């Protein structure tokens, strides 16, 4: 019988995590000379958690939650986002993206579904950055560690942000944190979805559940178990290999573009400064 890997590896102290992340948001926003934050609020658990954290860190009046529905976005999604906004009293603006997306794809009517999905994500990014300029704020990221590792996100789209408070938390860890913060139960109970087409679910697309993959990744990535040890612990070899491949293949999304080195000092190679340089 397979050994059950310790679920304790994904345990978090929600109070401690909240204490750190609210201070992180405050410190990073203020050191850059800002007081305010903006985020895209989809009504899913990730962006809801970020909105709750930002409201706590900066005060709801300093938070702008932007909803950016496309014509196929579900009503449930909109309702959940509204519940977060109303509950927290954060500022909000709705910017539908159907007009600009459809105008673009009128020229490419045969584009595959993935192109539409990526275009939507990047359209939302440009809206957020523009709204951040209007609101005098920084954009908060809403990508979690599971998505970042698996590459389940659009480069320069939903993965783009100034600072990301939840990028080191697995999807599984966001549930207890969301409950701790008071995120509405409806949001905690629904199936994770990018809401990019009707019936889309993260887990349907990925082919495994976050619960399974997080249990594997915390051992593989954080605790550095070897392949043979994971298989011995009960993970199927194909599953381990598939996840390891996804992590490797998508690494480019997590890095700045590669620069061809010519001079004595090149960005990110031997021109090394902290991003928080001088603040």
């Amino acid at each position, binding site marked *: 019988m397979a050994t059950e890997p310790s679920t*304790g590896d994904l345990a*978090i*102290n929600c109070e401690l995590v909240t204490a750190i992340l609210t201070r*992180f948001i405050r*410190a*990073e926003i203020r050191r850059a000379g800002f007081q305010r934050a903006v985020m895209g609020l989809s009504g899913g658990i990730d962006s809801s958690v970020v909105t709750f954290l930002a409201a706590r860190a900066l005060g709801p009046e300093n938070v702008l939650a932007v909803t950016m529905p496309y014509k196929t976005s579900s009503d449930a999604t909109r309702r959940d986002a509204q519940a977060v906004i109303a509950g927290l009293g954060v500022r909000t603006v709705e910017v539908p993206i159907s007009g600009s997306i459809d105008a673009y794809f009128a020229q490419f009517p045969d584009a595959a579904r993935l192109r539409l999905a990526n275009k939507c994500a990047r359209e939302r990014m440009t809206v957020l950055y523009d709204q951040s300029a209007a609101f005098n704020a920084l954009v908060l990221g809403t990508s979690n560690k599971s998505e970042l590792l698996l590459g389940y996100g659009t480069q320069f789209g939903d993965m783009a942000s100034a600072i990301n408070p939840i990028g080191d938390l697995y999807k599984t860890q966001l549930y207890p944190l969301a409950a701790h913060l008071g995120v509405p139960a409806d949001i905690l109970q629904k199936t994770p979805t990018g809401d990019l087409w009707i019936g889309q679910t993260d887990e349907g697309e990925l082919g495994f559940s976050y619960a399974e993959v997080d249990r594997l990744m915390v051992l593989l990535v954080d605790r550095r178990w070897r392949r043979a040890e994971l298989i011995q612990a009960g993970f199927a070899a194909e599953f381990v290999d598939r996840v390891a491949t996804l992590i490797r293949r998508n690494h480019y999304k997590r890095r700045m573009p590669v620069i061809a080195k010519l001079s004595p000092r090149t960005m990110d190679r031997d021109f090394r*400064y902290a991003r*928080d*340089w*001088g603040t």
Partner: protein
Amino acid sequence: MTSPTATAVSQPAVYRVALAQIAPVLADRQRNVALHLEQIQAARQLEADLVVFPELSLTGYFVRDMVPDVAIAPDAPEIRELLEAAGPMALVLGFVEESPQHRFYNTALYAEGGRVVHLHRKVYLPTYGLFDEQRYFAAGDRFAAFNTARFGRMGILICEDFWHLSAAAVMQAEEIDVLVCPANSPGRGVDGPRVRTAETYEHLSKAYAQLMGAVVIVVNRVGFEDGLCFWGGSAVTGPDGRTIAQAPMLDESLTLAAFDAAELRRQRLITPLARDERLLLTIEELHRIKRNRYGN
């Protein structure tokens, strides 16, 4: 029976230590000097005898390619200004030191009476995981203790030095009374009541304090640099392993701790571990290991 002429009894025995748990500005020496001046003034108002700042308190942690830009000599005007401001109060602070050979060290200094008494150059420069110190710093090459005017014999271990048993063993052999550890410890592990790194520091502090029969002072910074969370939690631990004072987690503070030097005597009477140390035996064993491992 006690001797009525014992000099130790007649000396003032209670010392007040201020733990300056600050969030330095990364690579802005001028603003950090101002921050130090504020803290020094506040510590003097609290009538502290000693104020301790964290590792690299004048520069911040992730200095990277800025190391040569923020480096100063121990007699730099900034440091002289701080020593002057400290007046009769002793102080420990951290900075990037440039040697006459243009090597750059992660250094902590101890000063009293307006002059620098001791420099400790960090020996163990962590270069693993999130750390990259050996790329930028030269390593110190000694763990020497020194005598202070008022606190007895003192040793300084900077952050990672504190995690090396051998460094602590040298400090015990040096027969110190006070061990000071300025730190820039980033938090990792959020499943327990505190960040895991904080637990380790507490375990080490308690163990060292009891094993050496000494007071252990850890001052860790707070704030964030490139996503790293420095967790603070500075503390003073008495020679019986009990926490004398504990600064808050995560937030800036100036925490005052008082310790009674007479407690050192009492603890060493109860558990005279340092007295019973067999230093020559240890040295002989280390020589034997050296011969086996490296030849004669």
